[in-house]
């Protein structure tokens, strides 16, 4: 790498390095495995639905109420006799979909405002940064809950509510990356050759900040899943009788002593998926610690 383009990495090298560092780290590899499983299962269930679920996730069966875990019912049944394992599987696509939706929207907002902030001069930079400060002043879960409550419960509104609290991190990240790239010589060269700011951002800045943002965004999916679980715990996600990881825990917690499997298993699944993302993220972050803005 020549010294004048120091800091600018070829995209293929970038991903190659990430893959290499994950392969070396057994915990990161475990994380990758969990994440891949989560998305594969979500896609399979979304496409094939009822064909692969062991039981109907919604149909009540009063002949098998609160059955403990067994080979017939892997995670037991709830008080309506519904198979908890099937309900957990059936809810996976919602979580996958919401997390991807929130992250994509936040990344887009982040890239637009972040590059603007990094490129359009001090006044705009100051305004955008103070705007993010305002959002950072709330515990994100309470802001998301307040917005979701006001909009009314439902998957779509929950996704909007989380996005409303999620974008500021991406603005900060995109801004920091923009400032870093902006100081490199090839951008100076583009300026000298009379490209407009708009063209520079479009042709030089965005393509160069994308790898970092995409990497960060991928690992950030776990955080959204965790927050969404919090919203659905309070009944702000998909509405009953549709299954939802968080609301399953909430419904089951009154049966904690009689039927611990009902709240615990859905909770463990949320935990495992979230830990998977965290392990993977930690591995990747090790390799690129300098390029990440901590949350």
């Amino acid at each position, binding site marked *: 790498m020549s010294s004048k383009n120091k800091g600018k990495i070829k995209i293929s090298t970038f991903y190659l390095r990430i893959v290499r560092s994950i392969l070396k780290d057994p915990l990161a590899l475990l994380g990758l495995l969990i994440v891949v499983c989560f998305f594969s299962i979500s896609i399979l269930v979304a496409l094939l639905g009822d064909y692969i679920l062991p039981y109907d996730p919604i149909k009540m069966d009063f002949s098998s109420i609160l059955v403990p875990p067994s080979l017939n019912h892997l995670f037991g049944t709830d008080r309506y006799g519904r198979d908890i394992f099937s309900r957990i599987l059936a809810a996976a696509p919602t979580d996958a979909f919401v997390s991807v939706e929130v992250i994509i929207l936040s990344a887009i907002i982040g890239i637009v405002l972040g590059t603007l902030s990094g490129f359009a001069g001090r006044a705009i930079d100051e305004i955008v940064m103070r705007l993010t400060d305002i959002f950072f002043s709330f515990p994100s879960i309470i802001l998301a809950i*307040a917005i979701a*409550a006001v909009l009314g419960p439902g998957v779509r509104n929950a996704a909007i509510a989380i996005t409303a609290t999620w974008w500021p991190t991406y603005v900060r990240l995109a801004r920091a990356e923009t400032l870093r790239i902006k100081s490199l010589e090839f951008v100076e060269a583009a300026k000298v050759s009379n490209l407009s700011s708009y063209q520079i951002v479009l042709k030089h800045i965005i393509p160069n900040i994308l790898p970092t943002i995409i990497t960060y965004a991928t690992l950030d999916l776990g955080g959204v899943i965790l927050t969404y679980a919090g919203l659905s715990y309070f009944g702000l996600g998909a509405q009953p009788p549709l299954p939802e990881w968080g609301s399953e*825990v909430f419904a089951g917690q009154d049966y*904690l002593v009689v039927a611990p499997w009902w709240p615990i298993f859905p909770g463990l699944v949320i*935990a495992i998926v979230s830990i998977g993302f965290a392990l993977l993220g930690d591995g990747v972050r090790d390799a690129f610690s300098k390029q990440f803005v901590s949350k």
Partner: protein
Amino acid sequence: MSVTTFVLRRLFMSIFVLLGVTTLTFIISRVVVPNPARAWIGPKPNPDLLKALMKKYHFDEPLYMQYFYYVIGLFTGDWGVDPYSSIPILTEIRMYFPVTIELTILSSLISILLGIPLGILSATHRGKTWDNAVRLSYLISTSVPIFIVALVLLLLLGYWLKIFPVSGQLSLNVARPPTITGLIMVDALLTGNLNAFIDNLYHMILPSFTLALSSFGIITRLVRSSMIEVLEMEYTKTAKVKGLNKNKIFYKHCLRNALIPTVTIFALLTAYFLGGSLFIENIFSLPGMGRYTTQALLMFNIPAVMGTTFLFALIIIVMNFIADVLYALLDPRIALE
């Protein structure tokens, strides 16, 4: 920049952010919400009463005037009225807030006791087994949803092993001390009721420990990195070369300087605790802000939800301001930059 200019600048910024926060809560509660009058006044007032209340709450005026009255109200102690109980929101908050204060303070203490030693352990054994174990533990603890940590601990330590009480603030046979501050532990001490103090503490340990368990990583991570930084400083090396006692170097030179940045973390930590209180107070049946908010949530009680939202943001802004000022006083280089 002198420290005074720095403080004034930060104060100005905080006020700006606070106004921004009021704008945001106003937009959420008066613009985004469908039918704001119904949300603020309640589901079924008769038409005459509705008209009177609309006028009283300024719903018949243009939005910018509504915003004006809203901000004036927030800063003069009128945060609206609970449409279900007809009690002013601030009066209700005063009833529920003490529990959350107790919870937050205890959780802070526990997460400091857990977080700082683990951070130091991690930094001094960098790259070795201890370091990896600590990093893995806080990685897991921050990824597991807090309500699951709470339910598992409740089941294990509360119901199965019966080490801790499973709900509430006091045992049935312990009388609540007269309300002075609202904080049971403080009131118990003020009235010399040691029994109630211990009983309340005993009830609060498991919820506080749960909160601390899912947030000590914030402290650990910070202490670890700032400790590593200090250990590699020139003055640490100089002290070593001078042949100073190892323990003395560690406690006098390293630890003190490494702990300074932790003052900045308390706002973030408080944000975690306040957010976590929503879940914890529900699971452990504690009558605090979290429980107040979630009950309001289930009833579509918008003034109450927005009251908590604003209060939490206000607390965090104030904490951030105090943290920055403290940091600048402890480490004057910060203000100079």
